[in-house]
């Protein structure tokens, strides 16, 4: 059993790391064409990433879309989640279902829907279309995180505020909203990261005029490969790994992922 445990863990570890390693090696390859064993090493593909205007534009577009759509997603989801949990609304389960529906369906459906919608308005190919389409698709994430936060909030907290003289509006502003901020940030972060990586919606909605990073990478794969793609990937990986390591050090990564803190403390 012990042996099986280590074999499995090693295999999975290699499986998960393999692409990361490949990409790292390719990104510092001297040559344009991939070969193995590699002929020489160079960091000039990273420089290319920041010098080439095509790549810079793609990164900038992706960041714009991600920031705007994640913010819009949170702006839409917050009042939605709050009202459904704090008030008696008829049909609230149905409304909640409508809220989570976009994300539950295969993305191609939202993508096609957005495409025919914007085509019919005559406002085709604009970056705002992508922002709105992403906001709708990813609004489910903050909706879920905020609803969960509302559900796990001690119901006595707003009551305590009321006994101290706070009107419902003041209670929301000074107590409920500040306590929802962490879940709003989590929702924003999730929507941001997913929007950054999203392909099919961005492509069908405005793929020819708004070239986001995933679209550019996909096009590069089809029409001509450069190791710059690998350089982009390595940057993404490093950012993500750093964020999670920081979280593990300063936050409580394990508790965040659902582990029971009591059980954890028992382990050496």
């Amino acid at each position, binding site marked *: *059993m*012990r042996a*099986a445990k280590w074999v*499995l*863990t090693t295999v*999975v570890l290699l*499986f*998960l790391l*393999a*692409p*990361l390693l*490949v*990409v790292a090696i390719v990104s510092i390859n001297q040559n344009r064409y*991939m*070969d*193995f*064993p590699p002929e020489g090493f160079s960091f000039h593909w990273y420089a290319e990433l920041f010098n080439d205007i095509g790549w810079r534009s793609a990164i900038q577009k992706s960041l714009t879309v991600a920031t705007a759509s994640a913010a819009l997603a949170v702006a*839409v989801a917050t*009042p939605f989640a709050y009202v459904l949990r*704090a008030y*008696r*609304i008829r049909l609230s389960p149905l409304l909640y279902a409508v*809220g989570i*529906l976009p994300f539950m*369906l*295969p*993305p*191609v*459906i*939202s993508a*096609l*829907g*957005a*495409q*025919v*919608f914007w085509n019919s308005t005559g406002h085709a190919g604009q970056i705002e279309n992508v922002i*709105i389409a992403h906001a*709708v698709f990813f609004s489910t994430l903050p909706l879920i995180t905020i609803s969960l936060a509302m559900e796990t909030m001690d*119901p006595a907290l707003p009551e305590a505020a009321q006994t101290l003289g706070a009107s419902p509006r003041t209670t929301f502003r000074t107590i409920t909203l500040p306590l929802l901020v962490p879940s709003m940030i989590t929702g924003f972060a999730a929507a941001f990261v997913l929007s950054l*990586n999203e*392909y*099919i919606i961005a492509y069908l909605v405005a*793929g020819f005029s708004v070239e986001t990073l*995933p679209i550019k*990478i*996909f096009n590069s794969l089809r029409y001509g490969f450069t190791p710059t793609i690998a350089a982009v*990937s390595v940057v*993404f*990986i490093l950012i*993500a*790994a750093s964020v*999670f390591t920081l979280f*593990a050090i300063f936050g409580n*990564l*394990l508790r965040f992922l659902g*582990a*029971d803190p009591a*059980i954890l403390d*028992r*382990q050496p």
Partner: protein
Amino acid sequence: MTERRKPTRGTYLVLGVPLAFLGVFFLLPFGIMVATSFYHRIPGGFYEAGFELASWRRLFSGVFLERTGFSLLISLLAGGVCIVVAFPFTYFLSRMRRRPHVALLIVVMSALSLSEVIVGFTWSVLLGRAAGLSNIMVWLGLMDEARAYQPGFLAVLLGLCYIAFPYCVLTLYPSLSRLDREVTEAAQTLGASPWRTFWTVVVPISRPIIMAGFLLVFVFTLGSYLISAILGRPEHWTLSVFISDQASFNANVPFAAAMALFLTVLSLAMVGIVMLIESRTRGAA
């Protein structure tokens, strides 16, 4: 015991704005897509308003049924492979000491944060003929010459598993890490080896979440686009790729719309089955 408050007129206004947003930018496009599925396709060009069932009839064509069958098959396989590997892996992970535990989780999360297009790219390299696994094997003397395993069925399956694996682990993790240590210890005091304990105690207890993990991967890969597009030939395309292809290059948007609606029904049916099974197992538990 807190009653939800009675909504005022202002409440409906606050609710109405996001609802209107979702209505206009999700429900309305969906409605337009339904209408579009009945439109007339102009060959070699766009489409015009009309009402015909040509696109819906094509749902019964061999091509479409083949794509649907393939999508279901590869999603089932991906679900099966993922859960068979992820479950024991997560179980061992949850029992590790803190340092390797956290380190492994960081690796899993880093894999999660890779975008699908990058995963497709890296596996295309790994399974290609120029700088991939087979090249390493040749270098090590274990193979005669390099081979390309992509584009191919195995490549698509591996890619899908890679994408879905971290999600599967994260779904299993909370329950497995909360699994009472004393339950397995009790089994061992009764004479069961770790191997037997795993199969006779851990797996049966975890049946609901095993099911949840499997269905998560299944539904998730059903909607996947990029892996199949990058790592597969047209015969390995999933429905999402096929629909997107019809919507962009072939410019047969009505047909794409009809297929998308079919896929919607299929996905909702899968989610419905998930919920049914979940409520059944919860009742039995």
